């Protein structure tokens, strides 16, 4: 098998921040299954926590079961992407139904970023403004593109990325899980190299800490993943911590190609 547990190292931190009393973020990561999921809930009272909690719990459980029951060859990029779309759709349904049937949950929803690692590839799905970044060779790159008004303004050339830091419209997302009967999940697959470090985070990090500081932190502290995650959250809080802050770090320590050839299977048998 793929033995992802040996290939992936994971650290997670979630914190309510310095201003809010509730943590509406939910996170889960599983190095054995090769998955990470992060959701930033929204809605009145505790509905945000409920929405993000449903999304993360459902996706983690169902995705893990699906990943473990499928053969590696079924989980090539396309197969994994289909899984992400399917599971996100199911979480969307569950949240939407709960919001419809219970008035106190009316209008709740959540952003989502979910990634699976399989056969030296990573497939990522996202909805809203929770992000996935990759640090490779000391350079940080934002892999997902927010579904937000701000991003659309940047794309249309109305404002620059630099100007966007001063916008008051940071809180408007154009897509979310659980708001409508259907959800459109954006999915992509990327090849992975040993040494890659992936960061999943809520906007509580990306709005409070610049990409440059995230890059510096990850590249300086990657020897100690848990410390790096804590340090990122601490920086967000030092800068004001106006929102919940969640961070999942996933480092690829070695090759995790699926063993599909006869010789590979034979070798795997002896492991």
């Amino acid at each position, binding site marked *: 098998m793929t033995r992802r547990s040996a290939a992936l190292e994971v650290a997670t931190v979630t*914190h309510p921040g310095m*201003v*809010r*009393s509730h943590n*509406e973020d939910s996170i889960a990561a599983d190095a054995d299954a090769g998955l990470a999921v992060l959701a*930033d*809930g*929204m809605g*009145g009272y505790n509905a*945000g926590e409920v929405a993000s909690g449903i999304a993360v719990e459902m996706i983690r459980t169902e995705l893990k079961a699906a990943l473990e029951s499928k053969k590696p060859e079924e989980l090539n990029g396309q197969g994994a992407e289909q899984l992400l779309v399917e599971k996100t759709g199911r979480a969307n349904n569950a949240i939407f139904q709960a919001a*419809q049937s219970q008035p106190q949950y*009316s*209008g709740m*929803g959540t952003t989502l970023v979910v990634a699976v690692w399989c056969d030296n590839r990573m497939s990522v799905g996202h909805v809203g403004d929770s992000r996935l970044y990759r640090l490779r060779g000391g350079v940080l790159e934002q892999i997902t593109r927010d*579904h937000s*008004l701000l991003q*659309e*303004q940047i*794309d*249309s*050339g*109305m*404002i620059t990325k630099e100007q966007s*830091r*001063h*916008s*008051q*419209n*940071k*809180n*408007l*997302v*154009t*897509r*979310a899980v659980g*708001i*409508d009967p*259907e959800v*459109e999940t954006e999915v992509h697959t990327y090849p992975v190299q040993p040494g890659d470090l992936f960061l999943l985070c809520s*906007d509580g990090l990306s*709005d*409070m800490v610049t990409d440059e*500081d995230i890059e*510096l*932190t990850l590249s*300086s*502290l990657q*020897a*100690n993943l848990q*410390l790096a995650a804590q*340090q990122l*959250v*601490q*920086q967000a*809080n*030092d*800068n*004001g*911590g*106006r929102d919940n802050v969640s961070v999942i770090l996933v480092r690829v320590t070695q090759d995790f190609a699926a063993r599909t050839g006869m010789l590979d299977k034979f070798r795997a048998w002896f492991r």
Partner: protein
Amino acid sequence: MAKLILSLDGSVIREIPLNKDRVTIGRKPQNDIPIENLAVSGEHACIVTILNDSFLEDLGSTNGTLVNGNPIKKHILQNNDVIEIGKYKMKYVGEAGSAAAAPATADDFERTMVMGMPVKTAASAPKPAAAAAPAPRPATPASPPPPTPVAAIPRPAPAPAASTPTPVPAPAAAAKPAVPAEPQPLAALQILTGAAAGKEIELIKNLTTLGKPGVQVAVITRRPQGYFLTHVEGASFPVINGKTLDAQARQLNDHDVIELAGVKMEFFVKR
């Protein structure tokens, strides 16, 4: 609603609500804000408002448009920005600004929204129309089109960090935010032993790593409340003034002596 306070030589002439998507300023009478003055161009500038953001744009005027004394072509207005056109001054009072002035509780502060819901109600008590259209992306905007709000969800969103310089202590620290009066004074390390003895390292970055990767590494973080030393990797931990550090971060005091990977160095604050 955001508004402009128009004044000349320090006396207020009138208040102008930004109640249109596009408000024009100029000498010609058909402007929304006509200013009868030869220093003002016929069509001088305009302000495009999209939800909480107002964009000021100079329309190629002869004498230019200043914001807080600096000439601009395009600018996202921030609360209390002063626009100068000729001898006239216009103070921008944003919606966020008036909200921040009011005693808002943390939890109803600028909640994130999925676009498309009535913005006003959503801001305090999110109640999205159940029949809200599925969040479509605005048709690829070619020219700066105020993207029509399509479908949005309330979620707590942080205010820009810059507007609230209230650095707070680490998550683990006491809940009461300490407010340092000034940014950290510059500090440095003086190497005392080894090949680099005498060398000085200025701690200008938020994170400075020390030691030998793979052997022993520690990091000095610059935070609002001071400089901290934390162990990153390696079997042995750094020693401060003869005492071995544990896994916790330790605040550095002026003239502390750090011993790391066989090298002694002194921490000192530069005056």
